[in-house]
């Protein structure tokens, strides 16, 4: 779950990090009021879950409350990186002496957290040359110790009061990372203003699997309705823009199913991993979700391990009888309880495929015929 910038900054402030004075608002009038309260000049920042907002025109400056009203009116309702802006953060414009980059994230290859820092902040870290980036893998049993802060400061060329501030910030950032089950905490830029380090941006991503124990965090839900329904059933669903609705069991084989559809020239409408051991009822509901997206064809690809073929067959028959299915369905069914599943389908006039690529080719052919 990605947090909006203003939420990330609220989180930082709770942990004692310095953030610019400001407030999230949803109307030009409020923006003007906040600008008056802070005392202009201010910056108006669109709140969308995407980077590169500046390049998309989603960040504007204003010298007076009146200008702040106009800027907010422009930004609110515009589209940044394909996302509609419904909130803006109005905050003090900082006097910038220097911009740093600092982040803590999970390095899957190293199987450890990694601290990334650079004295060349403000731009996309991917564009900063390697020799200007400090990368330190962290031991979860140790965290960020003072010696590590001293070493990071040395390599960034920091001394005196700034080094001291940096040495205070790093362990705090690590605490947020650990205590909030974050996959990423990133400050870019971290602004040096006088002797103060101020988090001028906040990018925080919380591990979805840990949300059950992070009840005090705000909820950000940018999923589509179908994605939400599937998630409630414990299924993994991602909407795509094609016309062949797909259901398979297992993330890998679902991806493989999308690939094979594309290989034959078709376009998948979604990724739906029905998981392992999903019972008849949940499978039927998953099918209803697929139907609700109005595809041209439904393609079900089941290699039953824990998943039982007869459950899938019964689910399909149930939906067909109760809701009616007015698009062609192609089903490939092998594995646990295969004979039973195939028999149930046959009794209901559905012929199952045994081979994955033959079934995929058929689904693509039918989608074309419907076009």
């Amino acid at each position: 779950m990605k947090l909006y910038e203003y939420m990330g900054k609220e989180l930082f402030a709770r942990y004692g990090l310095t953030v610019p004075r400001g407030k999230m608002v949803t109307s030009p009038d409020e923006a003007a009021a906040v600008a008056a309260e802070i005392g202009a000049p201010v910056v108006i920042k669109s709140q969308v879950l995407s980077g590169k907002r500046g390049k998309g025109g989603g960040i504007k400056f204003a010298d007076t409350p009146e200008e702040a009203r106009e800027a907010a009116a422009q930004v609110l309702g515009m589209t940044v990186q394909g996302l509609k802006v419904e909130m803006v953060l109005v905050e003090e414009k900082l006097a910038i002496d220097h911009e740093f980059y600092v982040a803590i994230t999970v390095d899957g290859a190293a199987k450890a957290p990694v601290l990334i820092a650079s004295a060349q902040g403000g731009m996309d870290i991917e564009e900063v040359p390697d020799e200007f980036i400090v990368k330190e893998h962290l031991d979860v049993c140790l965290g960020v110790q003072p010696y590590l802060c001293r070493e990071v400061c040395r390599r960034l060329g920091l001394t005196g009061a700034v080094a001291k501030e940096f040495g205070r910030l790093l362990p705090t950032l690590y605490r947020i990372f650990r205590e909030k089950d974050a996959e990423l905490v990133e400050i870019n830029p971290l602004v040096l203003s006088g002797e103060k380090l101020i988090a001028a941006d906040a990018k925080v991503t919380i591990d979805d699997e840990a949300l059950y124990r992070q009840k005090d965090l705000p909820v950000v839900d940018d999923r589509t309705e179908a994605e939400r329904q599937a998630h409630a059933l414990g299924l993994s669903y991602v909407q795509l823009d094609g016309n062949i609705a797909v259901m398979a069991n297992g993330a890998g084989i679902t991806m493989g199913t999308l690939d094979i559809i594309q290989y034959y020239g078709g376009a998948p409408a979604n990724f739906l991993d029905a998981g392992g051991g999903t019972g008849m009822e949940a499978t039927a509901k998953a099918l209803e979700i697929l139907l609700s997206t109005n595809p041209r064809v439904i393609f079900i690809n089941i290699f039953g391990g824990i998943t039982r073929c007869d459950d899938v067959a019964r689910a399909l028959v149930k939906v067909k009888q109760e809701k009616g299915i007015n698009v062609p369905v192609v089903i490939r069914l092998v594995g646990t309880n295969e004979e039973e599943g195939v028999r149930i389908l046959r009794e209901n006039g559905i012929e199952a495929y045994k081979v994955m690529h033959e079934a995929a080719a058929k689904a693509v052919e039918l989608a074309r015929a419907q076009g």
Partner: protein
Amino acid sequence: MAIIVDEKTNVLVQGITGNQGTFHTKQMLGYGTRIVAGVSPGKGGQTVEGVPVYDTVAAAMENHQIDASVLFIPAPFAKDAAFEAIAAGVRVVVIITEHIPVHDELEIIAFARRRGTIVIGPNTFGIVSSGRCKIGIPPNQFFVPGHIGVVARSGTLTYEIVANLTANGLGQSTVVGLGGDRVVGLSFVDVLEKFEKDPETRAVVLVGEIGGNAEEEASLFIKKMTKPVVAYIAGKSAPPGKRMGHAGAIIERGKGTFEGKVQALTAAGAGVATLPFEVPGLIKEALG
């Protein structure tokens, strides 16, 4: 020979009295796995499928020689159960559980490293040394003994490929599921090293997917291998920024793309299958 587990491996099932634990204990016994004990706090003294149940891993270890443990434990409690097995000195810990928070996984792996424990998973189907020992959840009938090593990030896709191998007369030495999460115990390289040394393994199938850089790292090792490797990478059609079920399967900031992985693997001399059913043909070609 096989890698990591074989017919002599004594296995403990943690969470043996739960639905999944009981079901798969029966399946694993049916495959011939030596399940010697189970653990379920508060259920010590019971038996499941004839297997004695203990309250703690330490209690089970006092009464049995145990080489490997498999966890059928709900995500919120999986970290504790893994710690318990590692602390008790179990050599191989197989974590089937999915949806474990990544910070818990970081802690499990950090502890396992200190103790020299092999962790398979989390979010894995497990490990099968065909015909000898199955620790995990794959359907029994598709895994037959032979000389192909398989290492994979995902489950059902691996069954698909193993079934294709078996149907083409290619049995397997060992099939290892690394797990679908971003942080897992073993890397492709860890397993490839073992296959390279295993006299019974003649060729290796690597089943990867988009996201991360595990396949790119594997390529560096494949370059040095004497045994042929055939790879299949899932997720060619996945758009960037969309997580495809597995925590690791996401193209972020242009990294972990299908094209990048295929290029790295091809440059390393691996055969790359476009579709799963092409894998057996490429293996036969590579073996000559």
